[in-house]
């Protein structure tokens, strides 16, 4: 009979927790929990940086009041979506949950990883927050004059859409990782810390966080989502990983290695292409 993950989780926790006579618990984190927290933190930090760029651009140029109203309504909508989807996901039987969540994470993760590999290989422009900020600023200025004392629909809509769309990815990652580990609280906490850290940094510098190594973070998140997606998806379909949870210690580095290999292949192909082009040009001149 399949053991419910909550029972396994409780056993893990019990085996890792020491109880002293003075009724103090020494808290310990399992490897999977650490992986969950790091993955969610990185993914949410990336999304928060992108949302912050939009909010800063439209708030600075037009109306902070309308922009922050848009941010607030978007956060409310995200809370409603989380409250509606969270219990529905966790109510699924464990194997169905792992299969569905694993498949979604795998599809989602592979898309992230594909883009990250193409960026690292030089086939896709690197995401540049300064450039995105300047584009948002120009669009906000082009939207016409604004009366800062009145409600500005442009600021509201742009901030609302930006935060909602970036936030949906955060909700998706928190719910899929959290529900699978039966630890939505830890996933939500990691997401909250990431968002707060990015917002605090944004408030401090009052500029987009261009120095955050966003493309590297996206590469790392793609690797993590793909690895966890593989692990949970295959388990949900009925496969048993050799070594159980420890298989993740092989899956994650192997995914990273394959991704680096693909980046190296693309770079080599581009180098060869450039050399051929130079050679052909020289031949024409001769």
């Amino acid at each position: 009979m399949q053991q419910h993950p909550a029972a396994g989780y409780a056993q893990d926790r019990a085996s890792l927790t020491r109880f002293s006579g003075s009724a103090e618990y020494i808290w310990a984190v399992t490897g999977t929990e650490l992986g969950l927290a790091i993955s969610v933190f990185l993914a949410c930090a990336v999304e928060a940086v992108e949302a912050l760029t939009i909010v800063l651009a439209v708030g600075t140029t037009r109306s902070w009041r309308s922009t922050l109203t848009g941010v607030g309504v978007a956060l409310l909508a995200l809370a409603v979506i989380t409250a509606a989807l969270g219990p529905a996901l966790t109510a699924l039987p464990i194997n169905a949950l792992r299969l569905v969540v694993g498949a979604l994470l795998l599809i989602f993760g592979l898309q992230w990883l594909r883009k990250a590999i193409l960026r690292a290989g030089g086939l896709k422009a690197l995401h540049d927050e300064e450039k995105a900020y300047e584009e948002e600023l120009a669009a906000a200025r082009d939207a016409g004059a604004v009366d800062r004392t009145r409600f500005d629909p442009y600021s509201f809509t742009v901030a609302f859409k930006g935060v909602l769309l970036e936030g949906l990815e955060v909700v998706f990652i928190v719910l899929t990782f959290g529900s699978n580990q039966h630890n939505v609280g830890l996933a939500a906490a990691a997401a909250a810390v990431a968002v707060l850290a990015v917002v605090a940094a944004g408030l401090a510098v009052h500029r987009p966080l261009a120095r955050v190594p966003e493309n590297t973070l996206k590469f790392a998140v793609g690797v993590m989502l793909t690895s966890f997606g593989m692990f949970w998806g295959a388990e949900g379909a009925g496969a048993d990983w050799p070594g159980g949870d420890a298989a993740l210690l092989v899956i994650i580095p192997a995914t990273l290695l394959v991704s680096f290999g693909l980046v190296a292949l693309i770079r080599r192909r581009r180098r060869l292409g450039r050399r051929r082009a130079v050679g052909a040009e020289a031949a024409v001149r001769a």
Partner: protein
Amino acid sequence: MRRVEAFLRFMWDFVVGDDWRIAVGVVVALGITGLVAGASIPAWWIVPVAVIALLAGSVWRAARS
């Protein structure tokens, strides 16, 4: 009706993204894993092999285009 269409398009872009073959490949790989595991044959390797093939194929197509 337009809103439903727009929502479905958004969900498609959100989950499936730029290359639909990846989504189809993942579903097929998990289906094969389920069938093989159901026959009590070790099936853990199917998804990693599929992931390598799907990722390499998708990146290669993008590089050639």
